[in-house]
């Protein structure tokens, strides 16, 4: 109802008063949706990390992470994720300027970064579950580790699929410059996954 009113006043050349709440993300409603989703997702991760912290602080016998978790692989994974965030912004910058080949190249690199991250994580888990004898059923240290890193890994996998879909659409020529907003929204998700990993890397591995 208020929409119609706003259109009419505008049509008559009258001064347009704020009859609608102006969008927080003018021109790209998907961005608003993604931010809302990410706020909820951040709560899920935050609750998981807070639970981990509470269990750890409350237990005087909690082992030191460095007894089990090496950080060499993980530091490389962190670096890969940061690099893939940079390729993501370059990819967005490409499609915003109508440079399709730049978009495709950097989006392919972003997908590659995600796949490399997942490969290294699989390698790390294989080592921890096999040689180190960790298991999600063994104790709370192991359970919180596998749940938090696993939940994050699922997000990376989701991001790889998400970015791959955009890359394939781009390769098929179905992602014109006008649809750059889709890449921006996907970028928000991907950077969020990077952001969460920064925190997980610190809280699970380093501290």
């Amino acid at each position: 109802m208020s929409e119609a009113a706003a259109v009419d006043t505008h049509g008559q050349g009258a001064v347009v008063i704020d009859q609608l709440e102006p969008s927080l993300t003018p021109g790209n409603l998907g961005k608003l949706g993604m931010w809302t989703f990410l706020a909820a997702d951040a709560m899920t991760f935050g609750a998981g990390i807070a639970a981990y912290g509470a269990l750890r602080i409350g237990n005087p016998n909690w082992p030191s992470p460095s007894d089990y978790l090496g950080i060499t692989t993980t530091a490389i994974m962190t670096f890969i994720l940061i690099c893939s965030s940079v390729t993501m912004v370059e990819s967005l910058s490409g499609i915003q300027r109508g440079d399709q080949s730049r978009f495709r190249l950097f989006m392919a690199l972003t997908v590659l970064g995600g796949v490399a991250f997942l490969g290294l994580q699989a390698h790390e888990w294989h080592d921890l579950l096999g040689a180190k004898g960790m298991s999600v059923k063994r104790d709370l240290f192991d359970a919180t580790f596998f749940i938090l890193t696993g939940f994050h890994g699922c997000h990376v996998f989701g991001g790889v699929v998400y970015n791959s879909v955009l890359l394939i659409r781009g390769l098929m020529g179905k992602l014109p410059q006008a649809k750059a907003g889709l890449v921006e929204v996907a970028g928000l998700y991907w950077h969020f996954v990077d952001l969460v990993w920064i925190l997980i890397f610190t809280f699970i591995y380093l501290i």
Partner: protein
Amino acid sequence: MTTQAAVSGHEVHEEHAEPNYIAVFIYLSVLTGIELGVYAIGLPQFAKVGLLIALAWAKAVLVAMYFMHLAMERRGLWVIAITPVLLLTFLCLMLLPDLTTRMWTKFDHKIKVTNPAEMGANPVAPPPEQAPPAANN
């Protein structure tokens, strides 16, 4: 959609200047390097934890501000972005009473000490009353 464009049309296609992504990348890499350094040198635990958390938040803020463009967005969007941070701070504060009281009594109730013999003898507590209901009928 059209209405929205009509209302705020003059600010829809405002092209904001791109931040210097390579500079952000260098900052993130350097901060990660400092984190690894703090991890490697033997600082006292509280200093190490404090420094690492501060460095992690600095990196997270860099990603949100520049890669996620929060620095160039409308201030209103910050309300959404800041909400989980505030709620999670509140969640951590709510956990504190439980943790502090547990720390006081940790010598009385050691969490690690469980008696395997008891657990083996009685792995699942049976329901308290399993009297056959037919007795009353």
